[in-house]
């Protein structure tokens, strides 16, 4: 009898879990994303915690001047400096460095090999042409990509759902007018607008997010609209009206939850699409500002330094794995939400 009382949401989750590939992809993706959120603790040029002359210091949180640790200048301490490193080894002092001792923008002034340097014990995946650690840039770049994709997916889904719901539920003239508006809006040349805006404004992630959101909602809006057009005529909508529910209540409680299949199914694919969009824009130099770590910028570096195979290869691997994981998740989600498969 217990199987009878499984709620619809839980049933979908159980069906999702049945697909091992999708389930493990989700876990792996969340794990990787979680790690990248802690990037400052995993890959940083400052020790996490150190003890100097009997005092505990937290270089990750505070900026200490070089003088604090017996240096000559009143400038922020460079913890990769062999002199500072030595200071932490003296009489009872110690320092715990993160596993990878580079931030995405750390320049190692004490490196022994010319840049770009091949993978070594110092730089696990080598350095790029400016001497920055590729591992660190990949880690931070992955985080930027995923966060950007999450934000873009969120705004796109929200806009798409609202516009689709309004068109589909009210139908008639509202629908007709909005469809014509969308036809005009979708015929605007997105890429050229991006290029134009990139030269007018200072490039920034938020500007990119706004521009891509302005056009990204239309695909989803069509699906939500179609589902709403179908569901608005079902009897439980009429029943809801007969029970005295308002339009907003009917949309929110009854039609929207029944029209979520395209929204949820497309989530992972929209995310991988967003990651790809950001990467290609960065590759072309139209994306994030130059100082930001990004996968696209790394790919461009790989293209410009073909002899430094470690840059292109590792970036390509990270991109492929990310997109593959997202595709697997999307595939499993689609199967889990497919009602026709139930029988």
């Amino acid at each position, binding site marked *: 009898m217990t199987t*009878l*009382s499984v*709620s*619809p949401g839980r049933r979908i989750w159980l069906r999702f879990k049945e697909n091992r590939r999708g389930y493990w992809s989700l876990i792996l993706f969340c794990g990787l994303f979680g790690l990248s959120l802690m990037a400052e603790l995993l890959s940083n040029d400052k020790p996490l915690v150190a003890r100097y002359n009997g005092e505990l210091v937290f270089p990750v949180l505070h900026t200490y001047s070089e003088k604090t640790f017996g240096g000559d200048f009143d400038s922020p301490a460079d913890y990769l400096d062999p002199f500072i490193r030595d200071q932490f080894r003296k009489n009872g002092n110690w320092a715990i460095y993160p596993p990878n001792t580079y931030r995405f923008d750390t320049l190692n002034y004490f490196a022994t090999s010319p840049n770009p340097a091949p993978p070594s014990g110092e730089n696990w995946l080598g350095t790029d042409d400016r001497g920055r650690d590729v591992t660190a840039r990949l880690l931070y770049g992955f985080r930027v990509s995923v966060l950007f994709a999450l934000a873009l997916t969120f705004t796109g889904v929200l806009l798409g759902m609202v516009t689709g719901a309004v068109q589909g539920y009210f139908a008639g003239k509202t629908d007709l007018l909005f469809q014509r508006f969308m036809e005009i809006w979708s015929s605007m040349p997105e890429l050229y607008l991006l290029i134009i805006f990139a030269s007018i404004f200072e490039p920034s992630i938020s500007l990119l997010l706004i521009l891509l959101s302005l056009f990204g909602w239309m695909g989803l809006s069509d699906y939500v609209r179609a589902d709403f057009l179908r569901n608005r005529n*079902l*009897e*439980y909508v*009429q*029943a*809801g*009206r*007969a*029970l*005295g*529910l*308002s339009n907003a*209540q009917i949309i929110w*409680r*009854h039609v929207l*939850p*029944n029209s979520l299949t395209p929204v949820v199914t497309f989530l992972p694919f929209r995310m991988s699409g967003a990651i790809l969009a950001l990467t290609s824009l960065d590759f072309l130099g139209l994306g994030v500002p130059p100082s930001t770590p990004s996968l696209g910028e790394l790919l461009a570096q790989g293209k410009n330094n073909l002899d430094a195979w470690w840059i292109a290869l590792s970036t390509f691997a990270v991109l492929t794995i990310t997109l593959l994981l997202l595709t697997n998740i999307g595939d499993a989600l689609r199967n889990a939400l497919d009602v026709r498969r139930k029988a």
Partner: protein
Amino acid sequence: MSLLEIQNLSVAFGASTVVDDVSFTIAAGEKLAIVGESGSGKTVTALSLLRLNQDARYAGRIEFEGQDILTRSEAAMRAVRGKDVAMIFQEPMTALNPLFTIGNQIAEVLMLHEGIGAKAAALRTVELLDKTAFRNRRAGPCRIRINSPAASASAR
């Protein structure tokens, strides 16, 4: 004094008049069955009582408890629907939202019309379901009986 009074009701969609000059009255405690061929306008007549027909033009009068239904505002209509006048749909499988439990949907009406919280509504729902001797919550053939407590949950 009759509870419901319908005088010369006509309902038209576009150019076609679907209900033409219908009059009847129902007193409190009285039952009335409307019988007819399919397409003869039974459903449209019934839906008119709650003004649920979309894009329809009404003529005539519908008076419920002495108040005109046809001239009421949409918000005032919502207060009548499901509270004073309830409706049981003929196809129970589609009249319930497939994503929510039956209890959820009965409680929703209670919360809406009686202004009680989610907890009180849940208790009252169980009470109502017990009254209709309904225990197994996913049995298909009995769904129509679920529609009745949903409809009568708040109706007096």
